[in-house]
């Protein structure tokens, strides 16, 4: 009998206890080939049978562990495994199973230091209770599988420091759950030294872990190593003097904590400057571009981008690094963000993508070279335009670009001519003598430069760049081929693409492929129009869809196609047949409290459809997910600021009424008139008093919130949906209004079809913001569609009943009205009509649209002074009370 047969027979012993297990083990061992010894297998079988005798899953874990280790570690290691698993098994099969499972990866590394820590940590934790083991060991395993050995060692040290304390049961549970999550959440590049500081904190007092981890979330994680150590030094000193103050310091809840963190912080995360950058973008370009982190780019795009990308955009968002810490000071890091935004904004301001992209680059044999040429000429055009319009920007930003380009020069050696064209034309870098003398570069370079100068006139458009690409490609293609490097992949000619400074370049592929849904729409529409004899470019359609956030009107089609070609075609019908229909959703389960019928305006009939829409009033079922309370806690500084601001809105306690018939004192101006009128022989007025009256603000407001399905979409770079952000805004708004004392109500709406509009009461006018109201807000969830007209009519019906002097309806939504048989022109016309009806009842209306860019269609819908657009929904909680305050100030 040979060795294999012996092994098979040994493993077959297992089959008596568990045939499937035996088969799995055999299969695994067979793959290891000759590295498997008979003793090892016997050990496997013996220990597995022992484990199975205690508990089935324990035995399975042992078998799996041995199967992994055999053939990959030595016998000493197997012995260690056996001893440790037996030791653990003595404390119960649960502990044994966990050790059997997670010890494997540790042993495979052959790192005794790590093994020693593993044993210490698990012993400590086991002493607290087996429930402390699972999540930490899972975390450890994931680190080791990623090869992060050093991190794993530090993590084990953290566990040792933590569980060496006297801890209550709940505290043990807390740490077992939280520490792995937090540790794995730390940035890998900073994890080790950040954890060292956490260990330091815990060694001092394990109760400081919570505030410290809170503080890490709020901003301590962006401190450098020295800065964090400095912060903790200060924090611990404070803690020794005053425990409560120390805790607040670490949690960044105290002013001192926040100020210290800000002073020490050098690295700037994007979220800290996002609002600033968005505001700059809006001011500079007038369009609703917003910023996002590079890490939020969809994977399908990051694959096409160089690893070192620093800035790029897709027509809707500008993508920037998640954080910048390259410079020594915080201001310089902030300035870097600003420089990147300033440069990238130029592509939109000067319309770098306003050309017919369809197959433009694909016509060239070397697409990469064509894209680089487009980059060079386009950046050159941009430079000239920036110099004319923004000389300050060029003065500040271009030296950075030049320095970076020169630094990258040697990474661009295989495309020397192209690189120097880029340096000279795009960055206005002087050419070195060495380059001038280089025969490879000289002739082609001069020819292209002359062509560029010759073609450049006035304010060139992007067509200037694309035409130059066509003219210069043949010249550069020859040069590129002659410089071809056989080892460079994939481009056929061996041309390696240019790496510009900070990778700042127009990315037409990203721009034109970023919105596949618009691409599909544009394609469909192009075909529909082509079938009717109208030729339009898909790029033009897509660009218009991008500009209009997916909306396109018949006027847009006429504009793109040219008036003469459209003739008498019914564009609206073409659009309706091309564009997708709304989804049909299930109805919500709660029964309607009351039902109302409303008319709807039909723009084609130019008349109302009476009793056309059925609206059901419903009450939101309460939920107790604590959203309201968490929002108050999370936005505490903002709410405090808002309350102070809204205190100022409260009218002065007493106002002075002049020329009154009775009052507290004389109005001396009126008294003079009295005397003079008497002297003139006239009957003097008896209105000679000043009266002080308690001033009342008499404002009633209804906040109407769109609960359509689209509000479930996530805001950029967060796990918060648009509705989550709206809910936060509602919470802050409620708190602010409680201060100023205005009468207010909150309602939401959604629905499917004209017979299924739902109107949800969250807070009635005569309710205070009590627990029930808070729970209703907690319970808000995205529903279905947006049939705005009926909801607005119902809201105005509620406001009409109030005797307040000023009645205000604020509509909060994330887009245009849209429902089954309620789309586009029809929906906009009906909504507009409903708003006019409201205004005719002396009710003011103000609409706030979030999460989309500004759109002229919104002006058409709401009127240009009666709505606000908040492109970045996360700004809503900050902005809503401000807007309300501006609308109702006295």
């Amino acid at each position, binding site marked *: 009998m040979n060795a294999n047969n012996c092994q098979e027979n040994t493993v077959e012993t297992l089959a008596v206890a568990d045939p499937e297990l035996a088969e799995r083990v055999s299969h695994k061992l067979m793959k290891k080939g000759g590295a498997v010894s008979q003793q090892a297998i016997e050990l496997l079988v013996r220990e597995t049978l022992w484990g199975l005798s205690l508990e089935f899953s324990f035995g399975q874990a042992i078998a799996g562990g041995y199967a992994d280790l055999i053939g990959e570690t030595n016998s000493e290691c197997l012995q260690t495994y056996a001893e440790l698993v037996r030791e653990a098994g003595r404390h119960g099969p649960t502990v044994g199973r966990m050790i059997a499972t997670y010890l494997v990866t540790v042993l495979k590394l052959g790192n005794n230091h790590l093994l020693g820590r593993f044993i210490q940590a698990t012993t400590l934790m086991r002493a607290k209770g087996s429930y402390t083991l699972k999540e930490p060991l899972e975390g450890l395993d994931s680190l080791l599988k990623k090869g992060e050995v050093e991190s794993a060692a530090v993590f084990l040290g953290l566990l040792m420091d933590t569980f060496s304390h006297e801890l209550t049961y709940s505290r043990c549970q807390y740490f077992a759950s939280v520490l792995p999550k937090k540790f794995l959440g730390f940035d890998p590049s900073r994890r080790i030294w950040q954890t060292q500081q956490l260990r330091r904190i815990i060694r001092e007092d394990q109760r400081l872990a919570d505030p410290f981890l809170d503080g890490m979330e709020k901003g301590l994680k962006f401190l450098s190593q020295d800065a964090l150590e400095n912060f903790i030094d200060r924090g611990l000193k404070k803690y020794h003097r005053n425990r409560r103050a120390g805790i607040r310091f670490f949690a960044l809840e105290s002013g001192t904590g926040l100020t210290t963190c800000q002073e020490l912080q050098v690295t700037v995360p994007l979220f800290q400057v996002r*609002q600033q950058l968005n*505001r700059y973008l809006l001011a*500079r370009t007038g369009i609703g571009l917003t910023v996002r982190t590079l890490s939020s780019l969809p994977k399908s795009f990051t694959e096409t981008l160089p690893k070192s990308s620093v800035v790029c955009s897709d027509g809707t968002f500008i993508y920037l690094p998640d954080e910048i810490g390259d410079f020594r000071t915080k201001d310089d890091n902030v300035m870097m963000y*600003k420089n990147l935004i300033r440069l990238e904004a130029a592509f939109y301001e000067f319309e770098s993508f306003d050309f017919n992209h369809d197959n433009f680059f694909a016509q060239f044999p070397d697409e990469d070279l064509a894209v680089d040429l487009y980059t060079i000429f386009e950046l050159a055009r941009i430079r000239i335009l920036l110099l004319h319009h*923004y000389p300050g920007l060029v003065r500040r930003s271009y030296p950075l670009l030049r320095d970076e380009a020169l630094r990258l020069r040697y990474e661009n050696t295989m495309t020397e001519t192209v690189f120097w064209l880029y340096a000279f034309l795009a960055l206005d870098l002087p050419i070195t003598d060495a380059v001038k003398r280089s025969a490879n570069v000289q002739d082609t370079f001069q020819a292209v430069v002359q062509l560029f100068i010759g073609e450049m006139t006035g304010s060139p458009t992007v067509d200037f760049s694309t035409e130059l690409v066509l003219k210069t490609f043949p010249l550069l293609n020859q040069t590129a081929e002659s410089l071809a490097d056989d080892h460079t992949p994939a481009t056929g000619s061996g041309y390696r693409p240019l790496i510009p400074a900070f990778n700042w370049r127009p990315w037409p592929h990203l721009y034109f492929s970023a919105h596949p849904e618009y691409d599909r729409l544009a394609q469909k529409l192009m075909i529909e129009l082509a079938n009717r004899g109208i030729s339009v470019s898909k790029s033009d359609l897509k660009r218009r869809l991008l500009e209009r956030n997916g909306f396109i009107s018949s006027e847009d089609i006429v504009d793109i196609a040219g008036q003469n070609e459209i003739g008498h075609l019914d564009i609206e019908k073409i659009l309706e047949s091309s564009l997708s229909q709304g989804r049909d959703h299930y109805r919500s389960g709660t029964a309607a409290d009351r039902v109302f019928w409303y008319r709807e305006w039909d723009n084609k009939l130019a008349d109302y459809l009476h009793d056309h829409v059925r609206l059901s009033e419903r009450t939101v079922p309460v939920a107790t997910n604590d959203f309201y309370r968490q929002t108050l806690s999370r936005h505490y500084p903002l709410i405090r600021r808002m309350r102070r601001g809204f205190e100022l809105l409260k009218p002065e306690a007493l106002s002075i009424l*002049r020329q009154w018939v009775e009052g507290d004192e004389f109005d001396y101006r009126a008294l003079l008139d009295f005397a003079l*009128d008497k002297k003139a022989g006239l009957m003097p007025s008896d209105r000679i008093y000043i009266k002080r009256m308690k001033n009342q603000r008499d404002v009633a407001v209804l906040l109407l919130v769109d609960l359509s399905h689209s509000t479930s979409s996530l805001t950029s770079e967060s796990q918060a949906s648009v509705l989550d952000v709206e809910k936060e805004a509602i919470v802050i708004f409620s708190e602010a209004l409680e201060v100023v004392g205005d009468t207010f109500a909150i309602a939401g709406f959604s629905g499917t079809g004209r017979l299924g509009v739902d109107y949800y009461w969250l807070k009635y006018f005569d309710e205070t913001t009590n627990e029930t109201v808070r729970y209703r807000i907690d319970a808000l969830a995205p529903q279905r569609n947006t049939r705005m007209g009926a909801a607005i009519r119902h809201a105005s019906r509620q406001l009409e009943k109030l005797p307040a002097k000023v009645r205000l309806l604020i509509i909060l939504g994330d887009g245009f009205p849209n429902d089954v048989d309620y789309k586009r022109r029809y929906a906009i016309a009906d909504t507009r009509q409903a708003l006019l009806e409201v205004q005719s009842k002396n009710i003011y209306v103000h609409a706030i649209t979030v999460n989309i860019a500004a759109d002229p269609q919104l002006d058409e819908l709401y009127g240009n002074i009666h709505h606000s657009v908040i492109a970045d929904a996360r700004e809503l909680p900050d902005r809503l009370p401000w807007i309300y305050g501006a609308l109702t100030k006295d």
Partner: protein
Amino acid sequence: MPDESQLYSESHLIDEEPYYRQIGNEVNIFEAAHQAKLPLMLKGPTGCGKTRFVEYMAYRLQLPIITVACHEDLFASDLIGRYLLKHEETVWLDGPLTRAVRMGAICYLDEIVEARKDTTVVIHPLTDNRRMLSIDKKGEYIQAHPNFMIVISYNPGYQSVLKDLKQSTRQRFVSLKFNYPEPLKEAEIVAHEGMVDLDTASRLVTLAGKIRNIREHGLTEGASTRLLIYAAQLITRGIPGSEACRHAVCLPLTDDTRVLETLHDLIDDIF
């Protein structure tokens, strides 16, 4: 010898033609309204040329102009007039509105929405076909001079909903809508009034255009043409462009440090 009222009328005439760059058809509409004896309402943001336009039209029509800056404490007697003591006698002194009515001047009520509503209604009889002013204290009814015209100004945007013109007042006026001029014209205006070259004026106008994009995103109003002229005047006197813009354009607009930072960034780009 000219009487007092004539002297008064002449003192309110504008001697030198004010600089005004026509934007649309506003001059013709004003003249037509004046001929038809209709009152006029000028709507538009602050500093966009409403007052300058009225002055220009007063010069063009050779009419005296009396301006009243409206405010919360403006009473009817402030507009109509009151008795004063003079040497132990009571003497009636016409208010600015009465004087305008008598002499046939343009009475320009600036920012009418700031005045109390019980004061504003005083002008109602002058703004309909009656064109009459009643002075109750004197028992006098004055028929308005044929040349008399009421012009009011009003900024409809960004107003609190608590303050607005009543329909009964609004619907008595022909209305002209003003806005900041289109960039080329605005640059010419700034160059002329601020005495700077056209290139500098164009940059100021570019800055204003950018600032106006964030109206309602942190600013209540955009940068007015007036502020640009102030900045230009500082530049003419040797103040560097960026500094002039900070002091004349940004700081008057807002105190919010975050918004100011954006405005400074824009200035750094342009200057």
